């Protein structure tokens, strides 16, 4: 389990009052954890601030709406953590 996932899981647990042990790498933020759009704004805010990035939520949403990506690619937590790692790496490059 990556350090990024642990950080994201802790953010979700604190923001949404979800027991930490119920948050798994394979959890889908919406389908499995029941996180709604307002709570996800809080999570995105905390992730942006913690990692010093700006998650491209509008781009991701557009890709899903246009059928060019699935929600699993961005909202399954291990995938989200990987996207975050990529954004952090891109910022450092």
């Amino acid at each position, binding site marked *: 389990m990556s350090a990024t996932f642990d950080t994201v899981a802790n953010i979700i647990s604190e923001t949404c009052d979800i027991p930490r042990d119920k948050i798994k790498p394979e959890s889908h933020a919406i389908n499995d954890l029941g996180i709604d759009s*307002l709570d996800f*704004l*809080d999570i*995105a*805010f905390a992730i*942006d*601030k913690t990692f010093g990035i*700006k*998650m*491209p*939520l*509008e*781009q991701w*949403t557009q890709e899903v709406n246009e059928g060019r990506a699935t929600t699993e690619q961005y909202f399954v937590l291990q995938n989200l953590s990987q996207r975050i790692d990529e954004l952090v790496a891109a910022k450092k490059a």
Partner: protein
Amino acid sequence: MQLEYFRLIDRIVTLDTAARTIQCEADVPTQSTIFDGHFPGMPLMPGVLLMETMAQASGWLILGLTNFAGMPLLAAFKEAKLRSFIAPGTALIVNASIHHQGSGFAVTHAEIRRGERLVCNAEITFRLMPFPNDAFLTNLKAVAASIGFPIEASADG
């Protein structure tokens, strides 16, 4: 302030896109039907309208920073505190700053002062939504111009 029309910002004093701050003026009217009920014999500016005033100042700031890219719609208030009561006829200063500008959302810190005294403050989250049509945007810009919004100072304008 035109309370019944929810037009709560009278004038934009400064919109600093580099510092990502805005300062506005809002004069509470001496007469309003709202004071008939809030409260009979003890007229006070409703706290929810003070919150909305902070939200509107924040909204103009976000519009300035995004060059009217979308409509900032209220999503959440956090740590909102109403610290003193406001009577009809009070001149208010409304300040807001960007705390975080995310993708499709923004978070501001806003406050209202009466002179030097802090009246209320909050952290406010907005979703940025597409404008419903061109007429809406045209009207919004007309309202902006009427309160001194410096169109030329918009971040991308």
